[in-house]
């Protein structure tokens, strides 16, 4: 039995009811996406200007804008009072800012601000545009997409997702022990900031590999290797903000699952509190139902979960009839 069938099967006495639910305006999702892409473009432009300015006119170091540097160097700063080479005070400020942002807004930084994430999204969309036009590539992509549904691939995906925790441990412990930025040699963010210098390094190779993978997989670095994303996942566990699904208004159309760049099965969740959620709101934008998915703020009070049993009246039948009226 698939997850979809299992979810709908539990609606025991509703087989003969047609539920009419309010539809969201078609332009709503487009507006949300447009807002996100505009903000991403602005951030990429600012960081790009900074990186190019550093190379051409010797302006401030592009690394000063790296929040991960602050997280890596935090231990050394706290214990010795000195910064690790390549870590600026601004990196520490940005690290603190990103952590607070994660505490409040979960993965908002990843989904709306991170230039590396933006670049991966752009490459993935370009890849899709190309494969849509070239039939052998289109067939290959469909085969890969069908393969993605196979349990073996899901298991590999789950294992690979541990990668970012390992990278985080390596980056933080390595920096604390050696007093240097050990992850810097393989950091695609650094390669991206230094891209105008045309240096062939391990970081550059990782960046290129990430972008090649991004043609086939959405946000591969974010899913499998990003230590900054891992830190935010931990902080985001305390966030009161999350996307919430109203199951009574959910069509089960799976559009949210398909839209999620991190492959979260949104339509099986009540609140999307997964550590990999990057708060991009693509699922919310894709949802055709007005009340299906929404951004919600959890209040500090709790309530007892509502339970349903075959002996209880079907509360949703009433809702359905109200809506039909």
């Amino acid at each position, binding site marked *: 039995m698939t997850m979809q069938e299992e979810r*709908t099967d539990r*609606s025991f006495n*509703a*087989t*003969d*009811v*047609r539920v009419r639910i*309010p*539809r969201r305006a078609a332009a709503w999702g487009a507006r*949300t996406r447009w*807002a*996100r892409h505009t903000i991403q473009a602005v951030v990429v432009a600012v960081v790009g200007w900074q990186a190019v300015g550093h190379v051409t006119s010797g302006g*401030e*170091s592009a690394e*000063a804008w790296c929040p991960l540097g602050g997280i890596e160097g935090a231990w050394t700063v706290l214990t010795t009072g*000195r910064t690790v*080479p390549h870590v*600026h*005070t*601004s990196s520490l*400020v940005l690290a603190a*800012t*990103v952590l*607070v*942002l994660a505490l*409040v*807004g979960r993965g*908002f930084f990843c989904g*709306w*601000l991170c230039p590396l994430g933006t670049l991966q999204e752009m490459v993935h969309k370009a890849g899709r545009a190309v494969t849509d036009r070239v039939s052998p590539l289109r067939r290959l992509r469909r085969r890969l997409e069908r393969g993605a549904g196979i349990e073996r691939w899901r298991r590999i995906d789950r294992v690979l997702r541990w990668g970012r925790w390992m990278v985080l441990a390596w980056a933080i412990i390595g920096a604390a022990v050696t007093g240097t930025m050990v992850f810097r040699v393989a950091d695609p963010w650094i390669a991206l900031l230094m891209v105008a210098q045309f240096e062939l390094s391990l970081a550059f190779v990782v960046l290129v590999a990430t972008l090649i993978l991004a043609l086939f997989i959405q946000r591969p670095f974010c899913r499998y290797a990003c230590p900054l994303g891992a830190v935010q996942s931990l902080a985001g566990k305390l966030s009161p*903000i999350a996307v*919430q*699904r*109203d*199951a*009574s208004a959910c*069509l*089960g*159309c799976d559009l949210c699952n398909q839209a999620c760049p991190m492959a979260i099965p949104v339509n099986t969740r*009540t*609140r999307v509190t997964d550590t990999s959620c990057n708060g991009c*709101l693509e699922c*919310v934008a894709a949802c*055709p*139902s007005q009340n299906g998915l*929404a*951004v*919600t*703020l*959890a*209040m500090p*009070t709790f*309530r007892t*979960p*509502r*339970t*349903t049993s075959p002996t209880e009246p079907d*509360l*949703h039948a009433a809702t359905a009839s109200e*809506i039909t009226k």
Partner: protein
Amino acid sequence: MRSPLRASLRSATKASRTELTIPRGRRAVPTQTRLRTRRIPVAMYVAALLLLPTLMVVGFMSAGLWANSETTATTQSGTRAGTPSGESGAGAAAPGAPADVKGSMTVQQVIDAFPPITAAQLLGKLGAPLNTPTSTQLKTLVEKGNSIDIPTLRTWLQEQGAK
């Protein structure tokens, strides 16, 4: 095979612009959460989460805790001349020990921090012409010369200090 849900979605799109229909036999379970939640408009969510980091960075900047390579250089030369440091990078520290020396620091900053060392000695060590301006960053000289890097320079400064 065509999904009945998709077909329903398509027909609903054609039939009505305002409502959708869940097909017969397909009902979702009620939403269950232990939390009391409230919907937030997406515009408010985005605006608040953009405002938060902006305010934090501006706050840190005004508290003098924002320093990158450029502001470090200007702040330290300004502080040493006895003038109040500028708004940005006011908290940047001078290199207290040779281990603190970074490529982004200028020649002047290093000779100010380690008095026995003269500009001529330092430039000589870096393999740079003696008429090089002391406002030049160390990393620029390191990149131009091919004899020394920053860790070696730190070791040399430590040796000079020990003498």
